[in-house]
């Protein structure tokens, strides 16, 4: 498949701070590409540059063959954007919001009316279309927020952490919507700091940290980077000191790496079962009570941990 997006050395600086440090990647037409990284990694800044909101300090990207720096208006017609925060008029109804945003994308007349009705159907809000958005639940607002991005049937949809702060049911609905859109042929650039979402949705994943793309590939390609390792997650009590345990475990035979994340200690090892007894013994020695233990097979979380020494959820 041809590339719909090609980013070359995108850099964004604010004074002395560099938010994005030369990101280069491409997205193929028809795929779901996830940018996975912790909060503050530079995901939203990258999306902002690609969507022409902010001009890159250096570098460029082409979307649908148009340069974001030289032909931003053409790029705007190719893309749709679902921003991280709700960007809606709460005192307008869902329908009024969709009509206004549709007009901003140049829709009008019957095509606007029919498209608004289609999108309302798609996001499941036809019955409540005439209610003001401020009366909606968080999940319903998220759905309208997504609906706005779909109005003009963009070839490439940017979704910037669309599931932040919503209930599991709405989250499930949004992930299913993304998959449906992709099945209909829409290319999606999805940013998240939830490893599970990237794992479920993506054809390819780019891992971003401190403004740098530190890994890029399919899930298989990425997990191979950490080798055939497993991760042992030790959940300890709130009054226990995870640092002490992590230090103690670093010396245990078979432990490749031990890191602290909140009240958990993540231990990377070739075979979790082999070191389990030794790990529990070390904890007992230090008087640290382990509340529960999870064993995880190689995944994107482990890749991030492997590459950065930190867990995704707590950075």
């Amino acid at each position: 498949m041809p590339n719909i997006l090609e980013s070359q050395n995108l850099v964004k600086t604010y004074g002395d701070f560099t938010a994005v440090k030369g990101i280069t990647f491409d997205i193929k037409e028809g795929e779901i590409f996830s940018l996975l990284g912790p909060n503050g990694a530079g995901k939203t800044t990258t999306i902002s540059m690609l969507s022409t909101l902010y001009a890159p300090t250096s570098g460029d990207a082409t979307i649908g063959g148009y340069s974001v720096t030289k032909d931003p208006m053409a790029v705007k017609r190719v893309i749709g954007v679902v921003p991280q925060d709700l960007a809606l008029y709460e005192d307008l109804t869902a329908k009024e919001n969709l009509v206004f945003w549709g007009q901003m994308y140049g829709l009008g007349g019957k095509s606007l009316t029919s498209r608004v009705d289609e999108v309302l159907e798609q996001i499941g809000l036809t019955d409540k279309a005439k209610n003001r958005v401020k009366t909606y639940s968080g999940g319903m607002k998220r759905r309208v927020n997504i609906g706005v991005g779909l109005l003009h049937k963009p070839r490439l949809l940017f979704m910037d952490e669309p599931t932040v702060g919503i209930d599991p049911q709405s989250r499930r609905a949004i992930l299913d919507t993304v998959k449906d859109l992709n099945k209909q042929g829409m290319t999606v650039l999805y940013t998240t700091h939830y490893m599970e979402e990237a794992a479920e949705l993506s054809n390819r994943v780019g891992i971003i940290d401190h403004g740098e793309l530190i890994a890029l590939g399919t899930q298989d390609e990425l997990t191979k980077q950490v080798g055939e390792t497993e991760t042992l997650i030790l959940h300890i009590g709130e009054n226990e000191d995870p640092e002490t345990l992590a230090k103690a475990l670093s010396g245990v035979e078979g432990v490749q790496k031990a890191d602290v994340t909140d009240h958990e200690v993540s231990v990377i090892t070739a075979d979790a079962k082999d070191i389990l007894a030794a790990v529990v013994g070390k904890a007992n020695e230090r008087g640290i009570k382990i509340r529960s233990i999870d064993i995880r097979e190689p995944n994107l979380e482990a890749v991030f941990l492997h590459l950065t020494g930190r867990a995704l959820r707590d950075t």
Partner: protein
Amino acid sequence: MLKLLLIGIKDLKLMFRDRAALIFMLLAPFLLTIGMGFVSGRFSGGSTGLSDIPVVIVNLDQKELGNALEELFNSADLADLVEPTASSDPEAARRLIDSDQASAAIVIPQGFTDSVIPAEGTTFDSTAVQPAPVQIEVYANPSRPTGAGIIKAIVDEFLSRVEEGRVSGTTSLVGLMQSGLLNPQDVASEAQELFANVDESESTAITLKTDTQGAEAVEFDLLAYFAPGMALMFLMYTVSYGGRSILAERSQGTLPRMLISPTSNAQVLGGKVLGIFLMGVAQVGVLILASSIFFQVQWGDPLGVLVLILAAVFGATGWGMLITAFARTPAQVGSTGAAVMLIFGILGGSFMSLENFPPFMQTLSKITPNAWGMDGFVTLALGGTLKNLTEPVTALLIMGALLFAASVVLFNRNGIAQQ
């Protein structure tokens, strides 16, 4: 252009759905206008609040009509309103105005009466072209527009009565001559009689409307002062509310969302400005309509009122944009806007006539759209028309244009989408 309009209309719709804003924009100025009306006695037939307007009268005519005008200003009807001083030297009178010691000087030239009423012994030729009457000069003090406007309105009313009498009198005399009932030699004495009591018959009608019998009076209703005063003061609230919406949209993400749609920065900013403008026009328009319906306030020439509203809102919108361009958060716009609203309200004469201010304050007031707007509304309420609004309308348009230019420079420098 279409998107600009769509954004503006959307903002107007949102304003009408914001109850708190509506209370501030419409109810508060309306209630304050009523309050000011009660305080000033508008609803109890008391004083107009405008009194003792200093005027210098130079009567070089010293005949019937000149004396009638002088007596009118010294009449009991206008005793509370004007404080006339007689002078015999036009230059000295003008100097008094230039040094801001009076609101206006009235110079009644020699021969004024004779130019209207033929002198005794004159032979009347009905076929000859009648000479135009000698002009009375009203030398107005520009720093006291309200007082000068009232003086001018009284003189204009007097002159229109005289002109009315002259035309109908001449017509009657010509008719009598043509029918053979009157000799040309007797015309002058008949004319003398016709005009002899012009002061007595008309002067009582030339007065401010301070009571219920003012149907034919020079009407200056106090609410026609306070209603625009309050509307203009709260207009500053409206424009800062509109400006705040730019920053609010920026922080709530709708402004960036507009910018990533196929809409240019200029269209987005222009649409927001149009929204503020429409809000201001709607606010002042509703207040004017309400005061006309509920209190029968006479705003004057409708075309003049419309043009003045548009110009005043344009000038005020410029201030709203400038405040917004300097602020970083919606709260900053809100607090700065409230302060500016009060300062401009006081400085711009929303509560009391600028003539009561010291000269430097009167000069400073020129930076406010309130002062220019008040000047225009008072002119209209005193019977002026669009033609008399050149100065305030031009000033308001220049003010708006300069402030827009400054705010666009600031927005461009900081980036409209940047937090």
